[in-house]
Protein backbone atom coordinates (compact mmCIF):
# COMPACT_ATOMS: atom_id res chain seq x y z
CA UNK A 1 0.00 0.00 0.00
CA UNK A 2 1.16 3.49 -0.79
CA UNK A 3 2.94 5.60 1.78
CA UNK A 4 4.67 8.94 1.61
CA UNK A 5 7.85 7.16 0.57
CA UNK A 6 6.35 4.98 -2.14
CA UNK A 7 4.37 6.73 -4.87
CA UNK A 8 0.71 6.10 -5.68
CA UNK A 9 1.49 5.83 -9.37
CA UNK A 10 4.57 3.80 -10.18
CA UNK A 11 6.97 5.37 -12.66
CA UNK A 12 7.87 3.46 -15.79
CA UNK A 13 4.24 2.62 -16.55
CA UNK A 14 2.92 2.25 -20.07
CA UNK A 15 1.07 5.58 -20.44
CA UNK A 16 2.21 7.75 -23.36
CA UNK A 17 4.59 10.63 -22.64
CA UNK A 18 2.56 13.66 -21.56
CA UNK A 19 -0.63 11.68 -20.83
CA UNK A 20 -3.21 13.82 -19.02
CA UNK A 21 -5.05 10.76 -17.72
CA UNK A 22 -2.16 9.32 -15.74
CA UNK A 23 -1.49 12.78 -14.28
CA UNK A 24 -5.13 12.93 -13.17
CA UNK A 25 -4.82 9.41 -11.72
CA UNK A 26 -1.83 10.52 -9.69
CA UNK A 27 -3.49 13.70 -8.41
CA UNK A 28 -6.70 11.83 -7.51
CA UNK A 29 -5.05 8.86 -5.76
CA UNK A 30 -2.69 11.17 -3.85
CA UNK A 31 -5.64 13.28 -2.69
CA UNK A 32 -7.56 10.23 -1.46
CA UNK A 33 -4.67 8.52 0.29
CA UNK A 34 -3.96 4.85 1.02
CA UNK A 35 -7.44 3.87 2.19
CA UNK A 36 -9.01 3.32 -1.23
CA UNK A 37 -9.92 0.62 -3.72
CA UNK A 38 -9.94 1.58 -7.39
CA UNK A 39 -12.24 0.09 -10.00
CA UNK A 40 -10.98 0.60 -13.55
CA UNK A 41 -12.75 -0.69 -16.67
CA UNK A 42 -11.24 -1.33 -20.10
CA UNK A 43 -9.71 2.03 -21.12
CA UNK A 44 -6.24 3.56 -21.34
CA UNK A 45 -5.88 3.65 -17.56
CA UNK A 46 -7.02 0.03 -17.39
CA UNK A 47 -4.20 -0.88 -19.76
CA UNK A 48 -1.76 1.32 -17.82
CA UNK A 49 -2.85 -0.25 -14.51
CA UNK A 50 -1.10 -3.52 -15.25
CA UNK A 51 1.91 -4.57 -17.27
CA UNK A 52 1.75 -8.09 -15.98
CA UNK A 53 3.23 -9.09 -13.54
CA UNK A 54 3.65 -5.47 -12.41
CA UNK A 55 0.89 -3.10 -11.34
CA UNK A 56 1.04 0.67 -11.72
CA UNK A 57 -1.25 1.93 -8.98
CA UNK A 58 -0.05 1.40 -5.46
CA UNK A 59 -3.54 0.72 -4.08
CA UNK A 60 -5.81 -2.28 -4.69
CA UNK A 61 -7.30 -2.14 -8.19
CA UNK A 62 -10.09 -4.20 -9.67
CA UNK A 63 -10.14 -4.20 -13.43
CA UNK A 64 -13.60 -4.72 -14.83
CA UNK A 65 -15.31 -5.22 -18.15
CA UNK A 66 -15.98 -2.08 -20.17
CA UNK A 67 -19.55 -1.43 -19.01
CA UNK A 68 -19.35 -2.47 -15.38
CA UNK A 69 -17.46 0.15 -13.35
CA UNK A 70 -20.51 1.27 -11.38
CA UNK A 71 -21.79 -2.31 -10.95
CA UNK A 72 -18.48 -3.27 -9.35
CA UNK A 73 -18.65 -0.21 -7.09
CA UNK A 74 -22.13 -1.32 -6.03
CA UNK A 75 -20.94 -4.82 -5.17
CA UNK A 76 -17.82 -3.60 -3.40
CA UNK A 77 -19.87 -1.25 -1.27
CA UNK A 78 -22.08 -4.14 -0.17
CA UNK A 79 -19.02 -6.24 0.61
CA UNK A 80 -17.30 -3.41 2.55
CA UNK A 81 -20.51 -2.89 4.56
CA UNK A 82 -20.80 -6.60 5.34
CA UNK A 83 -17.21 -6.63 6.56
CA UNK A 84 -17.62 -3.38 8.49
CA UNK A 85 -14.79 -1.88 6.42
CA UNK A 86 -14.54 1.87 5.95
CA UNK A 87 -12.80 2.37 2.63
CA UNK A 88 -13.19 4.87 -0.23
CA UNK A 89 -14.35 3.17 -3.42
CA UNK A 90 -13.10 4.96 -6.51
CA UNK A 91 -14.35 4.35 -10.03
CA UNK A 92 -11.78 5.60 -12.52
CA UNK A 93 -13.09 5.39 -16.06
CA UNK A 94 -12.69 6.91 -19.51
CA UNK A 95 -15.40 8.83 -21.32
CA UNK A 96 -16.37 5.88 -23.51
CA UNK A 97 -16.75 3.71 -20.42
CA UNK A 98 -18.83 6.42 -18.74
CA UNK A 99 -20.97 8.38 -21.18
CA UNK A 100 -21.53 5.48 -23.60
CA UNK A 101 -21.28 1.86 -22.56
CA UNK A 102 -21.26 2.26 -18.76
CA UNK A 103 -24.02 4.85 -18.55
CA UNK A 104 -26.84 2.50 -17.54
CA UNK A 105 -24.82 0.96 -14.70
CA UNK A 106 -23.70 4.41 -13.54
CA UNK A 107 -27.23 5.79 -13.63
CA UNK A 108 -28.53 2.85 -11.59
CA UNK A 109 -25.79 3.07 -8.99
CA UNK A 110 -26.29 6.81 -8.49
CA UNK A 111 -30.04 6.42 -8.26
CA UNK A 112 -29.67 3.68 -5.63
CA UNK A 113 -27.45 6.03 -3.65
CA UNK A 114 -24.40 3.85 -3.08
CA UNK A 115 -21.36 5.54 -1.63
CA UNK A 116 -18.49 5.95 -4.08
CA UNK A 117 -16.39 8.48 -5.94
CA UNK A 118 -16.72 8.09 -9.70
CA UNK A 119 -14.05 9.87 -11.73
CA UNK A 120 -14.55 10.19 -15.47
CA UNK A 121 -11.28 11.28 -17.10
CA UNK A 122 -12.48 12.62 -20.39
CA UNK A 123 -10.02 12.41 -23.29
CA UNK A 124 -12.95 12.80 -25.67
CA UNK A 125 -12.65 9.53 -27.51
CA UNK A 126 -11.90 5.80 -27.40
CA UNK A 127 -8.17 6.31 -27.14
CA UNK A 128 -6.95 2.89 -26.02
CA UNK A 129 -8.23 1.26 -29.19
CA UNK A 130 -6.95 3.86 -31.64
CA UNK A 131 -8.83 7.17 -31.23
CA UNK A 132 -12.39 6.37 -32.30
CA UNK A 133 -15.22 8.81 -31.64
CA UNK A 134 -17.22 8.60 -28.41
CA UNK A 135 -20.39 10.32 -27.21
CA UNK A 136 -18.06 12.81 -25.55
CA UNK A 137 -16.05 13.68 -28.65
CA UNK A 138 -16.80 17.32 -29.45
CA UNK A 139 -18.54 18.29 -32.65
CA UNK A 140 -16.11 18.98 -35.49
CA UNK A 141 -13.32 16.71 -34.23
CA UNK A 142 -11.47 14.35 -36.51
CA UNK A 143 -11.20 10.82 -35.13
CA UNK A 144 -10.38 7.52 -36.79
CA UNK A 145 -14.11 6.83 -37.23
CA UNK A 146 -14.93 10.43 -38.28
CA UNK A 147 -11.96 10.98 -40.55
CA UNK A 148 -13.19 13.82 -42.73
CA UNK A 149 -12.86 13.82 -46.49
CA UNK A 150 -15.41 13.18 -49.20
CA UNK A 151 -17.77 10.82 -47.37
CA UNK A 152 -17.31 12.02 -43.79
CA UNK A 153 -17.68 15.52 -42.34
CA UNK A 154 -15.71 14.83 -39.14
CA UNK A 155 -17.93 14.46 -36.07
CA UNK A 156 -21.23 16.14 -36.86
CA UNK A 157 -23.09 15.29 -33.64
CA UNK A 158 -23.13 17.44 -30.50
CA UNK A 159 -21.29 15.95 -27.54
CA UNK A 160 -23.26 14.46 -24.66
CA UNK A 161 -22.88 16.55 -21.52
CA UNK A 162 -22.29 13.83 -18.94
CA UNK A 163 -22.12 16.26 -16.01
CA UNK A 164 -25.65 17.48 -16.76
CA UNK A 165 -26.90 13.91 -17.18
CA UNK A 166 -25.45 13.01 -13.78
CA UNK A 167 -26.80 16.23 -12.23
CA UNK A 168 -30.29 15.23 -13.38
CA UNK A 169 -30.08 12.30 -10.93
CA UNK A 170 -30.02 14.70 -7.98
CA UNK A 171 -26.58 13.36 -7.02
CA UNK A 172 -25.22 14.67 -3.66
CA UNK A 173 -21.95 15.90 -5.12
CA UNK A 174 -20.80 16.62 -8.66
CA UNK A 175 -17.83 18.65 -9.90
CA UNK A 176 -15.85 19.36 -13.03
CA UNK A 177 -12.08 19.71 -12.75
CA UNK A 178 -8.88 20.11 -14.72
CA UNK A 179 -5.31 18.85 -14.26
CA UNK A 180 -4.17 22.45 -14.87
CA UNK A 181 -5.82 23.46 -11.56
CA UNK A 182 -4.43 20.82 -9.18
CA UNK A 183 -5.39 22.62 -5.96
CA UNK A 184 -9.02 22.98 -7.11
CA UNK A 185 -8.99 19.34 -8.24
CA UNK A 186 -7.63 18.17 -4.90
CA UNK A 187 -10.22 20.10 -2.92
CA UNK A 188 -13.02 18.61 -5.03
CA UNK A 189 -11.68 15.08 -4.62
CA UNK A 190 -11.52 15.57 -0.84
CA UNK A 191 -15.10 16.87 -0.83
CA UNK A 192 -16.23 13.93 -2.98
CA UNK A 193 -14.68 11.50 -0.48
CA UNK A 194 -16.31 13.29 2.47
CA UNK A 195 -19.91 13.35 1.21
CA UNK A 196 -22.20 10.43 1.95
CA UNK A 197 -23.54 8.70 -1.13
CA UNK A 198 -22.38 8.93 -4.72
CA UNK A 199 -20.04 11.65 -5.97
CA UNK A 200 -19.04 12.28 -9.57
CA UNK A 201 -16.02 14.13 -10.97
CA UNK A 202 -15.74 15.02 -14.64
CA UNK A 203 -12.12 15.87 -15.46
CA UNK A 204 -10.75 17.08 -18.78
CA UNK A 205 -7.90 14.82 -19.83
CA UNK A 206 -5.66 16.02 -22.66
CA UNK A 207 -4.34 13.21 -24.85
CA UNK A 208 -1.33 14.24 -26.95
CA UNK A 209 -1.62 11.24 -29.24
CA UNK A 210 -5.34 11.26 -29.91
CA UNK A 211 -5.74 15.03 -30.10
CA UNK A 212 -2.51 15.56 -32.00
CA UNK A 213 -0.45 18.11 -30.09
CA UNK A 214 3.08 18.10 -28.60
CA UNK A 215 3.19 16.25 -25.28
CA UNK A 216 4.78 19.25 -23.51
CA UNK A 217 1.53 21.20 -23.91
CA UNK A 218 -0.82 18.80 -22.09
CA UNK A 219 -1.32 20.86 -18.95
CA UNK A 220 -1.08 24.15 -20.82
CA UNK A 221 -3.88 23.06 -23.15
CA UNK A 222 -6.12 22.06 -20.24
CA UNK A 223 -5.48 25.53 -18.79
CA UNK A 224 -6.33 27.22 -22.09
CA UNK A 225 -9.63 25.31 -22.19
CA UNK A 226 -10.56 26.92 -18.86
CA UNK A 227 -9.12 30.35 -19.64
CA UNK A 228 -11.02 30.54 -22.91
CA UNK A 229 -14.27 29.70 -21.14
CA UNK A 230 -14.75 26.41 -23.00
CA UNK A 231 -14.24 24.06 -20.03
CA UNK A 232 -16.18 25.40 -17.06
CA UNK A 233 -15.00 24.53 -13.58
CA UNK A 234 -17.97 24.18 -11.24
CA UNK A 235 -19.44 22.06 -8.50
CA UNK A 236 -22.92 21.06 -7.45
CA UNK A 237 -22.97 20.30 -3.74
CA UNK A 238 -26.33 19.11 -2.41
CA UNK A 239 -28.23 21.24 -4.87
CA UNK A 240 -26.05 24.34 -4.52
CA UNK A 241 -24.35 25.18 -7.79
CA UNK A 242 -21.12 27.20 -7.75
CA UNK A 243 -18.77 28.28 -10.49
CA UNK A 244 -15.24 27.60 -9.21
CA UNK A 245 -13.58 30.07 -11.50
CA UNK A 246 -14.72 32.74 -13.95
CA UNK A 247 -11.82 33.71 -16.21
CA UNK A 248 -11.42 37.48 -15.98
CA UNK A 249 -10.15 38.12 -19.44
CA UNK A 250 -11.08 35.18 -21.63
CA UNK A 251 -8.60 33.84 -24.17
CA UNK A 252 -9.78 33.29 -27.75
CA UNK A 253 -11.23 29.78 -28.13
CA UNK A 254 -8.98 29.41 -31.15
CA UNK A 255 -6.00 29.10 -28.80
CA UNK A 256 -7.45 25.84 -27.52
CA UNK A 257 -8.34 24.34 -30.89
CA UNK A 258 -5.48 25.49 -33.12
CA UNK A 259 -2.63 23.40 -31.60
CA UNK A 260 -4.61 20.16 -32.09
CA UNK A 261 -4.38 18.28 -35.38
CA UNK A 262 -7.89 16.83 -34.86
CA UNK A 263 -9.21 20.38 -35.43
CA UNK A 264 -6.74 21.35 -38.17
CA UNK A 265 -9.56 21.65 -40.72
CA UNK A 266 -11.56 24.28 -38.75
CA UNK A 267 -11.97 27.46 -40.78
CA UNK A 268 -12.24 31.09 -39.68
CA UNK A 269 -16.04 30.95 -40.04
CA UNK A 270 -16.22 28.02 -37.63
CA UNK A 271 -13.94 29.80 -35.16
CA UNK A 272 -16.07 32.90 -35.30
CA UNK A 273 -19.21 30.83 -34.71
CA UNK A 274 -17.64 29.03 -31.75
CA UNK A 275 -16.35 32.26 -30.24
CA UNK A 276 -19.80 33.81 -30.53
CA UNK A 277 -21.37 30.76 -28.84
CA UNK A 278 -18.94 30.88 -25.92
CA UNK A 279 -19.24 34.67 -25.60
CA UNK A 280 -23.03 34.25 -25.54
CA UNK A 281 -22.86 31.66 -22.74
CA UNK A 282 -20.68 33.88 -20.60
CA UNK A 283 -22.83 36.93 -21.24
CA UNK A 284 -25.78 34.91 -19.91
CA UNK A 285 -23.74 33.78 -16.90
CA UNK A 286 -22.77 37.36 -16.11
CA UNK A 287 -26.36 38.52 -16.42
CA UNK A 288 -28.33 35.69 -14.82
CA UNK A 289 -25.70 33.83 -12.82
CA UNK A 290 -24.34 30.36 -13.62
CA UNK A 291 -26.88 27.62 -14.18
CA UNK A 292 -26.74 24.21 -15.81
CA UNK A 293 -29.06 25.58 -18.48
CA UNK A 294 -26.14 27.56 -19.92
CA UNK A 295 -25.33 25.65 -23.08
CA UNK A 296 -21.85 24.23 -23.34
CA UNK A 297 -20.55 24.65 -26.87
CA UNK A 298 -17.14 22.97 -26.67
CA UNK A 299 -17.10 22.77 -30.48
Amino acid sequence: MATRETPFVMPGNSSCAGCGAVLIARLVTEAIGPNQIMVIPACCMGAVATSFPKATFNVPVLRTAFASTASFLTGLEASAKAKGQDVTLVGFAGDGATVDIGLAALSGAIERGHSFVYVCYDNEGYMNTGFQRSGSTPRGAQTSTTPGGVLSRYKTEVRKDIAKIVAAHGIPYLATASPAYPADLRRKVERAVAVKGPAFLHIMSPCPLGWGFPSAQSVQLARTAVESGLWKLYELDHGVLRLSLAPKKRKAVREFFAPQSRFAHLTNDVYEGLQAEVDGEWATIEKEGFSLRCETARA
Partner: protein
Amino acid sequence: MLKDGKNAQAFPEFGPERRGAPVRSYLRIDDQPILLRTPVTAPDTVVVMDATLLERRDTVLGIKPGGLLLVNAPERPPVVVSVPVRMAWVDAMRISASLFGKQIPNTAMLGAWCRVDGIVGQAAIEAAIREWFPAKHAEKNIEAARRAWDAVEVAELEASSASDTAKGSSAFAFLDDYPIIATAFPGEGGAGRTGSWRISDPVVDAQRCVRCGRCVTACPEGVVAMTEDGVTIDLTYCKGCGICAVECPVQAIRSGEVGA
Protein backbone atom coordinates in the same frame (compact mmCIF):
# COMPACT_ATOMS: atom_id res chain seq x y z
CA MET B 1 7.66 -9.12 -50.09
CA LEU B 2 4.91 -8.78 -52.62
CA LYS B 3 7.33 -6.82 -54.80
CA ASP B 4 9.68 -9.80 -54.81
CA GLY B 5 6.85 -12.10 -55.90
CA LYS B 6 6.25 -13.70 -52.48
CA ASN B 7 3.11 -14.09 -50.41
CA ALA B 8 2.95 -12.24 -47.10
CA GLN B 9 0.64 -12.00 -44.11
CA ALA B 10 0.96 -9.47 -41.29
CA PHE B 11 -1.27 -8.88 -38.27
CA PRO B 12 -1.03 -7.55 -34.71
CA GLU B 13 -2.14 -9.28 -31.53
CA PHE B 14 -5.22 -7.70 -29.93
CA GLY B 15 -4.21 -5.18 -27.30
CA PRO B 16 -3.75 -1.48 -26.54
CA GLU B 17 -2.93 0.62 -29.61
CA ARG B 18 -0.92 3.33 -27.96
CA ARG B 19 2.66 4.47 -28.02
CA GLY B 20 4.52 2.84 -25.14
CA ALA B 21 2.26 -0.15 -24.73
CA PRO B 22 3.98 -3.43 -25.61
CA VAL B 23 2.62 -4.74 -28.91
CA ARG B 24 3.27 -8.08 -30.57
CA SER B 25 2.67 -8.58 -34.27
CA TYR B 26 3.37 -11.36 -36.70
CA LEU B 27 4.65 -11.70 -40.25
CA ARG B 28 4.55 -14.81 -42.42
CA ILE B 29 6.29 -15.04 -45.78
CA ASP B 30 5.91 -17.90 -48.25
CA ASP B 31 6.20 -18.75 -51.92
CA GLN B 32 2.79 -20.43 -51.63
CA PRO B 33 -0.49 -18.71 -50.70
CA ILE B 34 -0.78 -18.57 -46.87
CA LEU B 35 -3.89 -20.20 -45.43
CA LEU B 36 -2.86 -20.33 -41.77
CA ARG B 37 -4.49 -17.62 -39.62
CA THR B 38 -2.90 -18.21 -36.21
CA PRO B 39 -0.15 -16.42 -34.27
CA VAL B 40 3.44 -17.45 -34.98
CA THR B 41 4.73 -19.54 -32.07
CA ALA B 42 8.07 -20.75 -33.50
CA PRO B 43 9.50 -17.81 -35.43
CA ASP B 44 12.56 -17.95 -37.70
CA THR B 45 13.13 -14.31 -36.91
CA VAL B 46 12.27 -12.14 -33.91
CA VAL B 47 12.48 -8.36 -34.33
CA VAL B 48 12.53 -6.46 -31.01
CA MET B 49 11.66 -2.77 -31.46
CA ASP B 50 12.59 -1.77 -27.89
CA ALA B 51 15.47 -3.46 -26.07
CA THR B 52 13.76 -3.09 -22.66
CA LEU B 53 11.28 -5.75 -23.88
CA LEU B 54 14.10 -8.27 -23.63
CA GLU B 55 13.56 -8.20 -19.86
CA ARG B 56 10.31 -10.07 -20.48
CA ARG B 57 11.25 -13.67 -20.87
CA ASP B 58 8.48 -14.34 -23.37
CA THR B 59 9.86 -11.88 -25.92
CA VAL B 60 12.29 -14.27 -27.63
CA LEU B 61 10.30 -17.33 -26.70
CA GLY B 62 10.00 -20.09 -29.28
CA ILE B 63 12.70 -18.79 -31.62
CA LYS B 64 14.10 -21.63 -33.76
CA PRO B 65 17.68 -22.85 -33.28
CA GLY B 66 19.85 -20.86 -35.67
CA GLY B 67 17.12 -18.24 -36.00
CA LEU B 68 17.67 -14.51 -36.24
CA LEU B 69 17.15 -12.07 -33.37
CA LEU B 70 17.26 -8.40 -34.42
CA VAL B 71 17.18 -5.80 -31.64
CA ASN B 72 16.84 -2.01 -31.69
CA ALA B 73 19.65 -1.20 -29.25
CA PRO B 74 22.54 1.27 -29.06
CA GLU B 75 24.98 -1.50 -28.18
CA ARG B 76 25.14 -5.28 -27.99
CA PRO B 77 22.20 -6.19 -25.73
CA PRO B 78 22.57 -8.83 -23.00
CA VAL B 79 20.28 -11.64 -24.09
CA VAL B 80 19.55 -15.04 -22.61
CA VAL B 81 18.38 -17.68 -25.11
CA SER B 82 17.81 -21.39 -24.77
CA VAL B 83 18.96 -22.19 -28.34
CA PRO B 84 21.85 -20.81 -30.39
CA VAL B 85 20.76 -17.85 -32.54
CA ARG B 86 22.26 -15.20 -34.77
CA MET B 87 21.84 -11.87 -33.03
CA ALA B 88 21.91 -8.50 -34.78
CA TRP B 89 21.52 -5.03 -33.30
CA VAL B 90 21.32 -1.49 -34.60
CA ASP B 91 20.73 1.89 -32.93
CA ALA B 92 17.54 2.66 -34.83
CA MET B 93 16.46 5.21 -32.21
CA ARG B 94 19.50 7.38 -32.89
CA ILE B 95 19.05 7.07 -36.64
CA SER B 96 15.41 8.06 -36.42
CA ALA B 97 16.05 10.87 -33.91
CA SER B 98 18.73 12.38 -36.12
CA LEU B 99 16.64 12.16 -39.29
CA PHE B 100 13.12 12.82 -38.02
CA GLY B 101 13.69 14.42 -34.60
CA LYS B 102 11.33 11.73 -33.28
CA GLN B 103 11.46 8.11 -32.23
CA ILE B 104 10.03 6.29 -35.21
CA PRO B 105 12.57 3.53 -35.70
CA ASN B 106 10.43 1.44 -38.06
CA THR B 107 12.02 2.12 -41.43
CA ALA B 108 15.51 1.95 -39.92
CA MET B 109 14.67 -1.47 -38.47
CA LEU B 110 13.32 -2.49 -41.86
CA GLY B 111 16.65 -1.60 -43.48
CA ALA B 112 18.61 -3.55 -40.87
CA TRP B 113 16.33 -6.56 -41.21
CA CYS B 114 16.60 -6.49 -44.99
CA ARG B 115 20.42 -6.69 -44.70
CA VAL B 116 20.74 -9.42 -42.08
CA ASP B 117 17.84 -11.60 -43.18
CA GLY B 118 18.24 -11.29 -46.91
CA ILE B 119 14.79 -12.66 -47.78
CA VAL B 120 13.80 -9.42 -49.43
CA GLY B 121 16.07 -7.28 -51.59
CA GLN B 122 17.02 -3.69 -50.77
CA ALA B 123 15.51 -2.42 -54.02
CA ALA B 124 12.12 -3.95 -53.18
CA ILE B 125 12.18 -2.34 -49.71
CA GLU B 126 12.98 1.07 -51.13
CA ALA B 127 10.27 0.77 -53.78
CA ALA B 128 7.78 -0.17 -51.04
CA ILE B 129 8.80 2.83 -48.91
CA ARG B 130 8.33 5.12 -51.92
CA GLU B 131 4.89 3.66 -52.51
CA TRP B 132 3.79 3.86 -48.86
CA PHE B 133 5.03 7.33 -47.88
CA PRO B 134 4.12 10.65 -49.46
CA ALA B 135 7.00 11.92 -51.58
CA LYS B 136 8.25 14.42 -49.00
CA HIS B 137 8.79 11.71 -46.37
CA ALA B 138 9.92 8.86 -48.63
CA GLU B 139 13.54 9.93 -49.18
CA LYS B 140 14.24 10.44 -45.47
CA ASN B 141 12.80 7.03 -44.68
CA ILE B 142 14.92 5.42 -47.38
CA GLU B 143 17.92 7.20 -45.87
CA ALA B 144 16.96 5.72 -42.46
CA ALA B 145 16.79 2.24 -43.97
CA ARG B 146 20.19 2.71 -45.69
CA ARG B 147 21.91 4.01 -42.57
CA ALA B 148 20.64 1.02 -40.60
CA TRP B 149 21.70 -1.30 -43.43
CA ASP B 150 25.25 0.07 -43.01
CA ALA B 151 25.26 0.21 -39.21
CA VAL B 152 23.75 -3.14 -38.21
CA GLU B 153 26.10 -5.50 -36.33
CA VAL B 154 25.85 -9.28 -36.04
CA ALA B 155 27.14 -11.89 -33.58
CA GLU B 156 26.54 -15.61 -33.07
CA LEU B 157 24.93 -16.28 -29.70
CA GLU B 158 25.43 -19.54 -27.77
CA ALA B 159 22.57 -21.13 -25.87
CA SER B 160 22.80 -20.15 -22.20
CA SER B 161 23.06 -22.74 -19.44
CA ALA B 162 19.94 -24.62 -18.45
CA SER B 163 19.51 -22.83 -15.12
CA ASP B 164 19.36 -19.44 -16.87
CA THR B 165 16.75 -20.54 -19.32
CA ALA B 166 14.65 -22.98 -17.30
CA LYS B 167 12.11 -20.31 -16.47
CA GLY B 168 11.89 -19.14 -20.05
CA SER B 169 10.78 -22.49 -21.37
CA SER B 170 7.07 -21.69 -21.37
CA ALA B 171 5.28 -18.42 -21.95
CA PHE B 172 3.70 -18.72 -18.54
CA ALA B 173 6.72 -20.00 -16.62
CA PHE B 174 7.16 -16.67 -14.90
CA LEU B 175 3.81 -17.27 -13.20
CA ASP B 176 5.69 -19.77 -11.01
CA ASP B 177 6.89 -16.75 -9.07
CA TYR B 178 3.34 -15.70 -8.21
CA PRO B 179 0.86 -17.53 -6.01
CA ILE B 180 -2.33 -16.24 -7.63
CA ILE B 181 -2.84 -15.96 -11.35
CA ALA B 182 -4.04 -12.61 -12.71
CA THR B 183 -2.90 -10.60 -9.73
CA ALA B 184 -0.21 -8.04 -10.42
CA PHE B 185 1.77 -6.30 -7.71
CA PRO B 186 2.90 -2.68 -7.65
CA GLY B 187 6.33 -2.22 -9.16
CA GLU B 188 8.20 0.40 -11.07
CA GLY B 189 9.12 -0.08 -14.68
CA GLY B 190 6.10 -2.16 -15.70
CA ALA B 191 6.68 -0.90 -19.23
CA GLY B 192 10.46 -1.11 -18.89
CA ARG B 193 12.89 1.72 -18.32
CA THR B 194 10.76 4.36 -19.96
CA GLY B 195 13.66 6.84 -19.82
CA SER B 196 14.67 5.28 -23.14
CA TRP B 197 11.64 6.97 -24.75
CA ARG B 198 13.20 10.43 -24.34
CA ILE B 199 14.32 12.42 -27.32
CA SER B 200 15.43 15.26 -25.06
CA ASP B 201 16.36 15.54 -21.38
CA PRO B 202 14.82 18.01 -18.93
CA VAL B 203 17.71 20.02 -17.45
CA VAL B 204 17.12 22.02 -14.25
CA ASP B 205 18.94 25.29 -13.63
CA ALA B 206 19.28 25.25 -9.82
CA GLN B 207 20.25 28.94 -9.75
CA ARG B 208 17.04 30.00 -11.42
CA CYS B 209 14.68 27.59 -9.62
CA VAL B 210 12.50 29.28 -6.98
CA ARG B 211 11.36 25.94 -5.49
CA CYS B 212 7.69 26.54 -6.19
CA GLY B 213 7.08 22.82 -6.73
CA ARG B 214 4.93 23.21 -9.84
CA CYS B 215 7.05 20.77 -11.83
CA VAL B 216 6.63 18.20 -9.04
CA THR B 217 2.82 18.49 -9.26
CA ALA B 218 2.62 18.64 -13.06
CA CYS B 219 4.86 15.70 -13.99
CA PRO B 220 2.51 12.90 -15.13
CA GLU B 221 5.04 10.24 -14.19
CA GLY B 222 5.70 11.60 -10.71
CA VAL B 223 9.45 11.44 -11.31
CA VAL B 224 10.24 15.00 -10.20
CA ALA B 225 11.10 15.37 -6.52
CA MET B 226 11.91 18.31 -4.28
CA THR B 227 14.93 17.53 -2.14
CA GLU B 228 17.18 19.59 0.10
CA ASP B 229 19.42 20.15 -2.89
CA GLY B 230 16.52 21.36 -5.04
CA VAL B 231 14.62 19.70 -7.86
CA THR B 232 15.77 16.25 -8.98
CA ILE B 233 14.42 14.17 -11.86
CA ASP B 234 14.58 10.38 -12.09
CA LEU B 235 15.90 9.96 -15.62
CA THR B 236 15.48 6.19 -15.47
CA TYR B 237 11.75 6.69 -16.00
CA CYS B 238 11.28 10.32 -17.17
CA LYS B 239 9.63 10.01 -20.60
CA GLY B 240 10.79 13.44 -21.72
CA CYS B 241 7.28 14.79 -22.29
CA GLY B 242 8.48 18.35 -21.60
CA ILE B 243 5.52 19.36 -19.39
CA CYS B 244 7.77 20.36 -16.46
CA ALA B 245 9.64 22.85 -18.67
CA VAL B 246 6.41 24.43 -19.93
CA GLU B 247 4.89 24.63 -16.45
CA CYS B 248 7.92 26.15 -14.70
CA PRO B 249 7.00 29.81 -14.08
CA VAL B 250 10.61 31.02 -14.24
CA GLN B 251 11.89 28.87 -17.14
CA ALA B 252 14.31 27.03 -14.90
CA ILE B 253 13.90 23.81 -16.89
CA ARG B 254 15.07 23.55 -20.46
CA SER B 255 15.23 20.61 -22.82
CA GLY B 256 18.75 19.44 -23.51
CA GLU B 257 20.28 16.70 -25.59
CA VAL B 258 19.77 13.15 -24.33
CA GLY B 259 22.58 12.08 -22.02
CA ALA B 260 24.50 15.34 -22.43
